[in-house]
């Protein structure tokens, strides 16, 4: 019985390793092609490791294509989104968890209802609104319409409800204002959730594509995903340069993810089924 089980365990393990291999394969080729010369990327059959590794592709994307600037733009968008979403979602989440207001439940449901409205559906009027605000072709324009997150408000509200309210009420007795309670007691107790949520937002902002594609028109404003899409036009068929660009865009979120895996997964699992 136990021997039979271990055989099936091994079969499962082999299948899992095979699957993980397929999941990983694109990353492998992304990295090795980025170190190959144009001749080598066009070799048939493709090489599994570069025979004459070169840094030329990275020189191309960073010197000729300004990927340094695009990385900064991307980090700016992602970073600003983290700060704004953490700030505004936590505050609104606290209001819905602890503060009384007429029709509070209905207001909460109206906020949550945007989760039922995919942003692509309203992408054209969003663009026209931004145009009326004269924010087309600005990074602030990209950020402005991405700040509101119903998921974030929901996440923080659920978390605040799980905190012991007696702690906050003791502070009221001691004469603290709601503002002080929120910043001095509640937020310090929310470091884990802020870490998880902030990480999700950063990676979301780093990888945003359709929205900045529409909003940003001039080359110096591009974020990495946009610059990558444009590489296709400029370096058509130059797989080495394209893959070097892809590596630049892919590495920072992967490092963050590996460093803070638990935190990231907690954020997703929470939003997933509550």
């Amino acid at each position, binding site marked *: 019985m136990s021997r039979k089980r271990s055989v099936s365990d091994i079969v499962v393990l082999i299948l899992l390793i095979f699957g993980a291999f397929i999941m990983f394969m694109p990353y492998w080729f992304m990295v090795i092609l980025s170190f190959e010369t144009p001749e080598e990327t066009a070799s048939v059959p493709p090489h599994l490791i570069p025979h004459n590794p070169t840094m030329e592709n990275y020189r191309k994307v960073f010197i000729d294509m300004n990927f340094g600037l695009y990385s900064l733009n991307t980090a700016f968008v992602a970073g600003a989104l983290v700060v704004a979403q953490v700030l505004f979602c936590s505050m609104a989440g606290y209001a819905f968890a602890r503060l009384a207001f007429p029709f509070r439940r209905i207001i909460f449901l109206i906020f949550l209802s945007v989760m039922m409205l995919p942003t*692509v559906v309203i992408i054209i*009027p969003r663009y*026209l609104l931004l145009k009326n605000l004269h924010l087309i072709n600005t990074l602030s324009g990209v950020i402005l319409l991405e700040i509101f997150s119903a998921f974030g408000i929901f996440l923080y509200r659920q978390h605040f409800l799980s905190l012991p309210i007696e702690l906050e009420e003791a502070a009221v007795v001691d004469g603290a204002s709601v503002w002080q309670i929120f910043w001095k007691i509640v937020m310090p107790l929310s470091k884990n959730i802020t870490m998880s949520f902030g990480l999700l937002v950063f990676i979301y902002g780093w990888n945003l594509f359709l929205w900045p594609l529409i909003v940003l028109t001039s080359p110096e404003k591009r974020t990495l995903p946009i610059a990558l899409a444009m590489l296709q036009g400029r370096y058509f068929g130059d797989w080495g340069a394209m893959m070097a660009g892809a590596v630049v865009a892919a590495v920072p979120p992967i490092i963050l993810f590996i460093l803070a*895996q638990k935190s990231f997964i907690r954020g997703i699992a929470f939003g997933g089924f509550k």
Partner: protein
Amino acid sequence: MRILGGISRKKHAMYFLLFTVASFVFSSLAYYIPFGYGIRLSLTSYDAISKPIFIGFDNFKELFQDPVFWVSTKNSFIYALYVVPTIVILSFLIATGLNKETRLIMFLRVLYFLPMVTSSIAVSLVWKWIFHRDYGILNRIMEFFHLPRQDWLGDPKLALLSVAIVGIWGGLSYNIILFLAGLQNIPKTYYEAAMIDGATKKDMLFYITVPLMSPITFFVLVTTTIWSVQVFDTVFIMTSGGPGYATYTLVYYIYRNGFFWFRMGYGMAIAWVLYGFLLILTIIQFALQRKWVYYE
């Protein structure tokens, strides 16, 4: 749920407004205003430069006779048919396999989760190379197994499937995490009790795991459906809707109308139809859930 005690009603209201005012502003800008504006926009002809012209329901009449709209609709749904069942089943199976805490499994998990954090544009470019008719690794593997080479992205019969493969590859991670979280919530005692009663591993899978996981499976089904019908990034990078209209999807067609041909009103009308499709799909799934979802 209890509100904070010891504070006057007035203070409550004041702080409530202070804490939510930014959310009111940003949600209006991002959702409510564009939503209202979008309704009006779909009834006009507008190129984003000259004045919009009110044309009533002409955009909607036009799209029902527009063959590209119907091709895009068909492609979006076929794509969803490729992607949704595959993702639901595979991510469930992979999650049950990864539901252990050994070092090797923890390492494998990282590999399975990577696509979720990687730019869809970066991975679409790599997959474009993998599928490349001449240099790509996939045709090399086909040759190795003595199978004919394919023009994965250039053949109208294969292009949508190829894009769907990337969608499946990229969509697994998120759902594996959801299933894993669900599996870890099933009390171990259920399995122990079943073992004492002489249940086999297969019995436990079908009589304990599957029913207890059905609410999460339902959630995964709904979210993956909504997500997959909106496919855009991979199409934009890998095929640009081609060859011909073989990989035109609804979102891609909205994008082309809005930001390529500057037919804002017409693009918006298509967007509303897309929204209608998504709502109908969701309603159908909710209606069917009573038949198979088990709530404790």
